[in-house]
Every structure is written in C-alpha cells, then in structure tokens.
C-alpha cells in the first residue's frame, strides 16, 4: 500500500513536469513568432505552424476531456482520503468541488474543439499558397505578379516554396475517445 501511493506521487511529479515542459514550449513558440526578427510569416510556414497548433489543441483537449474522470477517480481511491475547504478554512464537500471543476473542464473541451476547427479552416484557406524569390534588383510591377504566380515555372526558373495539400494532417485517430467527444 505504501509503495502504491508513492507511485501515485511519482506519477504526479511526472505530470507536473510534463505540464511545465508543454507550457515552456508554448511560451517559446509565442516568443519566436512574436519576436521582431519574425515580422513576416509566409503562407507555407504559417500553414505548418497552424498544423502544429491544431494538433497541440487536440492534445490539450485530450487532457481536459480526461481530467474530470481522473479527478473523480481520486475521490474513490482507496489509498487516500480527500479533504476540501474554502479560503476561510471552512470544510467543503470535495465531490461538489470536483463536479464544479468538471463543468468548467467540459466547457473548456468544447471551446478547444471549436478552436481546433478554426485552426484547420485557417490552414485550408492558405493550403495552396507558395512563394518564390523575386528577381534580384528589379522589382516586378504589380500587374506582372498574377501572371508569374499562375505560371510559376516560367520566367527565371527559381524554385517555388509551396504549401503541399498532401500535408494537411496529421489528423487525430478517428477511433480515439476524445475526437468522438469533439465531434459530438
């Protein structure tokens, strides 16, 4: 019995550490994108970043979808007793507080589902966008650009960096519990 609660505490430490790392990585992403060095994000890079954000939202929704069950499980766990009190130290019913948290988490999961869909729609909108280097020294007249864009292999033969529609995923597993929840 003693060993299993230590395992639970160890798991808790791992979960805290994973949450820290996820938060730090998101911070780094925001800092990188918002830095003055990166004032321009072309379509293909934005497409990839949106794809990662979309999946990131999906993984967060997996956590928020599962957390109510995991929290409720803690109330019935034979290894420990749960106590709750308010700010003034008055006793509260732990089950009621977990229920309140679960309601908020349910709303949060719904919003994450909406956010996921919007990220995917934004990604789709720029899925056919590409760019290539302008001819050195000579700027193009605006009227020339649609023509060059329509026939990208003409003119100077510079490579076009495009957003491949084949990379619109990765999509979540269709059979996963969370996606079923999100699609409801």
């Amino acid at each position: 019995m003693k060993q299993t609660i230590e395992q639970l505490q160890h798991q808790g430490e791992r979960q805290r550490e994973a949450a820290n790392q996820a938060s730090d990585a998101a911070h780094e992403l925001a800092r990188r994108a918002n830095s003055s060095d990166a004032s321009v994000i072309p379509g293909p890079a934005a497409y990839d970043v949106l794809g990662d954000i979309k999946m990131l939202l999906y993984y967060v929704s997996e956590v928020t979808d599962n957390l109510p069950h995991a929290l409720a499980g803690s109330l019935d766990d034979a290894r420990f007793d749960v106590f709750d009190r308010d700010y003034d130290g008055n006793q509260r019913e732990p089950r009621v507080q977990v229920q309140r948290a679960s309601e908020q988490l349910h709303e949060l999961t719904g919003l994450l589902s909406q956010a996921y869909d919007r990220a995917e729609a934004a990604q789709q909108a720029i899925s056919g966008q590409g760019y290539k280097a302008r001819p050195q020294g000579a700027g193009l007249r605006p009227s020339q650009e649609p023509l060059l864009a329509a026939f990208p292999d003409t003119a100077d033969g510079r490579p076009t960096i495009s957003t491949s529609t084949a990379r619109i995923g990765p999509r979540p597993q269709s059979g996963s519990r969370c996606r079923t929840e999100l699609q409801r």
Partner: protein
Amino acid sequence: MNKTKKTLDQLEAEGQQQEQSAQRARHAVSNLGLTVNGASAPVVPAPVACKLLKETGLLLGYLNQMIDYLPTALARSLDDPRISVSDHNCTGKFREPSTQIDEASEHMLALSAALARTVSYAEAARHAIEYQIYEERLDAATYTAELEAARKALADFPDSPSPDDAFSGMVRDLRRKHGIKPSRQP
C-alpha cells in the same frame, strides 16, 4: 552571397525556426497528454490537477499570443520585397493570395477568441479545487497498531513535576478524553 539572397535565406530560416518551435510545443503537449491519460494514470488528485490546469492556462495564453500575431505576419508576406506570393486551388486554378489570407485571418480571429475564453475556463476549474488536499489512508492493521502505540505512549508519559504548564495540561486532557490512566506516577 548578395544581400537580397541573404535576407531571403533569413526569412526561410526564421520560418523553419518557427516550425521547429511549433513542433517542440506539439511534442511537449503530446507528452503531457500521454502522461496524464496513460493507462497507468487513471487517478489525478486535485493538487496535481491544479498544477496541470495552471500550466494549461499559461499554454493556452501563449498560443493566443501567437495566433493574435499570425494574421499580421502572414499579411506582411504579401508586401515583402524578397518574395512573390502565389496561390492556387486544388485543381491548380489561380486564386488571389490576399483573399485567401483574409479568409484565413477571419478563422484565426475566431480561433483567438475561443482561446481567450479557454484561459478563463481553465482558471475557473483550477479555482474550484485549489484548496483540495489528500492524505494517505492507513490500512486497518497499521491504523490499529499506531493507535495502540499512541495509547501506550500517552499512558507511559510521566506527569510533569510542574503540572500547570500547557503541555502537561494537554496530556491530562487527552488522558481524560480517551479514558487512559497513567501507568506510572511522578
């Protein structure tokens, strides 16, 4: 390497760095999902859930910052002198890049609004359980053994030669409450 080429390289390098940062964030959150939802972790006590919700709220806030900026940065790519932007649909037909960016920006605006609301829900969930704690539950044999040890310690504890001090008073109260007589006298 001329200046124009160099700055275009910089643009591409920046794009790769952004993509790498996004991948790192995705993998970190994927790892979080595995750690929390793994079969070995069906139970998450409130103190751990609070930490998860705190970090999740921060994470969503950072994502919101990122998404807020993305439409502007994307629109700037149309006017960047280093590159020429093109767009076509899945059949290869030309589309106006600015129209597509406007459409993407509308979705990103809605995405940002949704993310802004998620932060407050994560905070509200955390607030509901922030004072919840847990204590290890002893099994019956351990509990009985510890209770007997406490009873014996209380019975064996000698009365103080100065019986008016606070600690001696507490010992007397405990003995009276639990019906434990001292086994030896001072």
